[in-house]
C-alpha cells in the first residue's frame, strides 16, 4: 500500500480513496519517517478509511506505528448523523493515557546538587511498577465518584487546587461518564490503583528548558530558559484496559448485528447512536476521568515532594493532555460546523487558538502539546495551530515511537548498563525494573526531533520549547 501513496507536499502524503475506502487517508511525515513506517500502518489506515460515517480522511501522525485496529498515531472523526461509528481500537486500551506537564520557578542549577535526594524521595513516594498500589483505598461507591468526577474528584479530596482544573482537557472532568456502563471487574481492578504510575513506557521526568522557539507562547505557558519542568506520563491503569477488553467483545457482536464489515478484530465498532455505541462512549468517559484523577493525584504527590525539598518553590500546571480518547468536538466541514466524534489513538489533541475549550490564558495562543522523547534525549513542548485543525482535527503526534521491539532492546542492552550510561551523562534514572529500563533504552526509540520537525513543518503544531532530561522515574 506504500506504493499507492501520492505526495501532496514535502510533509503530507495521500492514499487516494479506492475500493471500500469511504475517504482518502492522509499521512504526515517526511520521506525518511514514511519509508520506515511498517506496512501495517498503511493497512490499518486503509481499514479505518473504510469505516461508516468517517469524515474527510483517515489520518496518521509522523510517529505512526502498528497498533490495535487503528495505527498508533491514528486520528479519525465520525459523524453520528451519517451512521458514524465509535471504535474500541480508535481509543486504545490505556484510555486517556497522557502527559501532565508542570512548570517550576526553579532553575536547573538550583536543583542539580539536590537531585539525588529529590529522586530518592520521589521514588519512595510515587507507586510504580508491577503490582504497585496507591495509598488511596476506595469502596465501589467511591470509585464511581472518581469515574464521574475525574480530576475534579481529586481536587475535592485535597489533591491539587481548583485552578488546576482549567488546565486539563475537559476542565478535568469528561461529561457523560456513566459508571453503570463499566463492569464490576474493571472497577474491582482499580480500587487500589488511583495514584499509581504503572510501568512500560510510563514515566515521571524532571527536565529543564534548553531552547525556546517562540517567546510569546513560552511566556503564556510560563516557560523560561533553564527553568525546571516536570512531566508525568500515565493513564487509566487497569480500569481503562478492562473497559477496552470488555467492549471488544460487546462491540464485536454489535458490528455483526449492524452489518458493519470488520477487517481486523480490534477495529470492532458500533454506530455512535446505537445502545452499544452509547454505552461504550459512557464507559470510555469513565476511563478518561479515571486517568485524569490519576494524574491529578500524582501531580499533587510530586508537588508535595518538591516542596519538601524547595519550600519556597512555585509549581504550576501548564496543561494535562490525553492521547487515547474519543471526544465530541465541533469542527468545520465544507463550511459547516459539524459535531464530530474525534478518535485519537496515540495522538495528542492540539486545538487551535480561539477554541472555546481552551482556558482563557491560552485562548490566544492555542493548546499546549507535549511530545516525549526518551529518558536520555530531548522532549518538546508545542502548541496547536489553525492549520492543524484543517488537516487533522487539531491533532499532533504523541511521542517518538519505538524503533526497536522490546525483545530486541532486551537482547541489546542491560538495564543496569542503560542506567549507568545515563548517569555518566548526568541523568539520574530510578527504575523499579532493570528489564523495564533496558526496554526503554533511548536507542530503542526513533529520533523524536525528526518526528517533531515533521509535525511542525506539516503545520500540525508549532514548536515552543525543547526540554532536556535531568532525572527519570520508570515503573
Amino acid at each position: 500500500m506504500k506504493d499507492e501513496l501520492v505526495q501532496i507536499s514535502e510533509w503530507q502524503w495521500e492514499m487516494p480513496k479506492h475500493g471500500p475506502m469511504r475517504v482518502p487517508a492522509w499521512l504526515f511525515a517526511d520521506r525518511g519517517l514514511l519509508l520506515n513506517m511498517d506496512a501495517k500502518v498503511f493497512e490499518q489506515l486503509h481499514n479505518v478509511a473504510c469505516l461508516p460515517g468517517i469524515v474527510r480522511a483517515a489520518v496518521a501522525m509522523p510517529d505512526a506505528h502498528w497498533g490495535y485496529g487503528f495505527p498508533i498515531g491514528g486520528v479519525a472523526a465520525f459523524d453520528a448523523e451519517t451512521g458514524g461509528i465509535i471504535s474500541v481500537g480508535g481509543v486504545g486500551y490505556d484510555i486517556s493515557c497522557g502527559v501532565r506537564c508542570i512548570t517550576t520557578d526553579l532553575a536547573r542549577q538550583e536543583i542539580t546538587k539536590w537531585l539525588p535526594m529529590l529522586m530518592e524521595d520521589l521514588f519512595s513516594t510515587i507507586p510504580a511498577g508491577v503490582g504497585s498500589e496507591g495509598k488511596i483505598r476506595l469502596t465501589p461507591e467511591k470509585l464511581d465518584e472518581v469515574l464521574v468526577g475525574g480530576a475534579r474528584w481529586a481536587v475535592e479530596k485535597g489533591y491539587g487546587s481548583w485552578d488546576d482544573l482549567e488546565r486539563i482537557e475537559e476542565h478535568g472532568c469528561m461529561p457523560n461518564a456513566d459508571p453503570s456502563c463499566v463492569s464490576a471487574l474493571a472497577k474491582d481492578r482499580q480500587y487500589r490503583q488511583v495514584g499509581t504510575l504503572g510501568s512500560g513506557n510510563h514515566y515521571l521526568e524532571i527536565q529543564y528548558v534548553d531552547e525556546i522557539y517562540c517567546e510569546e507562547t513560552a511566556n503564556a505557558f510560563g516557560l523560561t530558559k533553564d527553568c525546571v519542568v516536570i512531566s508525568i506520563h500515565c493513564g487509566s491503569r487497569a480500569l481503562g484496559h478492562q473497559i477496552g477488553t470488555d467492549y471488544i467483545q460487546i462491540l464485536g457482536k454489535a458490528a455483526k448485528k449492524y452489518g458493519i464489515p470488520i477487517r481486523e478484530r480490534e477495529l470492532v465498532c458500533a454506530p455512535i447512536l446505537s445502545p452499544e455505541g452509547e454505552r461504550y462512549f459512557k464507559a470510555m468517559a469513565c476511563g478518561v476521568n479515571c486517568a485524569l484523577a490519576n494524574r491529578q493525584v500524582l501531580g499533587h504527590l510530586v508537588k508535595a515532594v518538591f516542596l519538601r525539598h524547595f519550600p519556597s518553590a512555585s509549581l504550576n500546571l501548564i496543561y494535562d493532555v490525553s492521547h487515547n480518547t474519543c471526544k465530541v468536538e465541533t469542527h468545520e466541514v465544507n463550511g459547516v460546523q459539524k459535531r464530530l466524534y474525534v478518535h485519537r489513538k496515540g495522538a495528542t489533541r492540539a486545538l487551535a487558538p480561539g477554541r472555546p475549550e481552551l482556558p482563557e490564558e491560552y485562548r490566544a495562543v492555542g493548546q499546549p502539546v507535549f511530545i516525549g522523547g526518551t529518558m536520555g534525549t530531548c522532549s518538546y513542548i508545542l502548541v496547536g495551530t489553525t492549520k492543524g485543525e484543517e488537516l487533522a482535527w487539531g491533532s499532533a503526534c504523541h511521542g517518538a515511537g519505538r524503533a526497536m521491539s522490546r525483545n530486541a532492546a532486551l537482547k541489546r542492552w542491560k538495564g543496569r548498563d542503560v542506567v549507568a550510561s545515563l548517569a555518566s551523562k548526568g541523568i539520574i534514572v530510578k527504575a523499579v525494573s532493570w528489564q523495564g529500563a533496558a526496554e526503554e533504552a533511548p536507542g530503542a526509540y526513533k529520533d523524536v526531533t525528526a518526528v517533531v520537525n515533521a509535525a511542525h513543518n506539516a503545520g500540525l503544531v508549532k514548536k515552543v520549547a525543547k526540554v532536556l532530561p535531568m532525572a527519570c522515574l520508570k515503573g
Partner: protein
Amino acid sequence: MKKFELFEHGADIGVRGFGKTMNQAFENAALAMFSIEVLDIEDLVATCFWQLSCESYDQEALLTAWLNTLISYADLYRVVFCSFDVTIADCTLTARVGGVPLNELHGEKGVEVKGATFTELYVSQRDDAWIAQCVVDV
C-alpha cells in the same frame, strides 16, 4: 519441546506457548505472559490456588479471554501465576491455577502486562505441536 517463547512486536511483546495439546499450549502461553512480569517464573512454586473459567466465540478469542482473565485475577488477588491446569471444551475454558503473592516474591521483577490483545493471535496445530500466541500490551 520448549514450553514457551517471546516474540517480536513493534511496541509491545508477543507471547507464544507450545504444547502437545491445545490445553498445554494455553498453559504455556500463560507462563510466557507471566515471565514478562517475573523473570524466574519457572522457578516459582505456587502457594495459593484458584479455580477459574472463561469463554469466548472461537478458540483464538478464547486465548485472549484466558490471558485477560488471568491478568484480572492477578490484579485482584495480587499474585503472579506460575502453574496452570487447563481444560478446554468447545469455547469454554476451565482451569486450576496456582500463584505466589506479590509480596512474597524476591526475584527480579520485569514489567507489568496490561492486557492480552487480538494482534498476532493464532491458535493452531502444526505437525504434532500446538501453538497458542498473541501480543500482550505492556
